């Protein structure tokens, strides 16, 4: 139950990460390429990588919270 409360509270805050992920992905990709298609491709891959990494961390913390809350 505690984990669900934390999950609900956390979900809305996670949405604030979306603009940052988009911005970081595009700027990082743009410093690696000159062509638009390459920038776009790299940005999508990098954005997916960041999102995946964050989800992985989220799962780790979620499982840890479940375990901690018993």
């Amino acid at each position, binding site marked *: 139950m505690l984990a669900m409360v934390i999950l609900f509270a956390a979900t809305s*805050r996670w949405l604030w990460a979306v603009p940052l992920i988009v911005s970081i992905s595009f700027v990082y990709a743009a*410093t690696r390429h000159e062509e638009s298609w390459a*920038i776009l491709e790299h940005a999508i891959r990098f954005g997916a990588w960041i999102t995946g990494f964050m989800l992985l961390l989220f799962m780790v913390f979620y499982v840890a919270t479940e375990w901690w809350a018993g």
Partner: protein
Amino acid sequence: MVVSPIGDDNRPTGQDGEGGTNMASEQLETLSPPPYHVHLRDPWLAALWAWLWPGAGHLYQGRYVKGGIFMTCILLTYFFGLAIGGGHVVYASFRQPDLRLHYLLQVGVGLPALPALVQTYRQRTERGPLFGWKAMYPPDVRGEQIYDELAEWNAQYGFYFELGTLYTMVAGLLNVLAIYDAHSGPVWTMTSRDRRPPDPG
């Protein structure tokens, strides 16, 4: 100044020194980036422009797409962060008890963060906020816990004060990447197109 990411002159040679083995040559052919050239004009001037206004250095170099990307992403991130923090998340205070080291990252965004220095100067000379507008004006924390304006902002904006600080710091850091790119050109990495094996024909 013209930059080619990996030109013929920079290609590493194989173990046998002169030209390398056939296998190494084939691998190099596969890995070679598309031959594009970037005209950086005056790199230091471009870097200065890039710092002053995100994307301006690239526009100066005629790299309009990248200039547009940097300008849009970095400035939107910065001003969005500034807005959700009520204009208070960017300020320059380097005196105890309020040592605002965040500003060292935020100032990476250039001109949009510089009014904070003017506001700090005006506070120290007791002239009051510029145009009476308290954005970027350092908080009043001089009293000995009698009145702490920073604590008041934190209470008022809560989560958004931290979030705004984060957004503006990230914007400043991203512009450091853009400044480097304006000065030295792109750091080349492989794309899916580069990874494809060459046509047998």
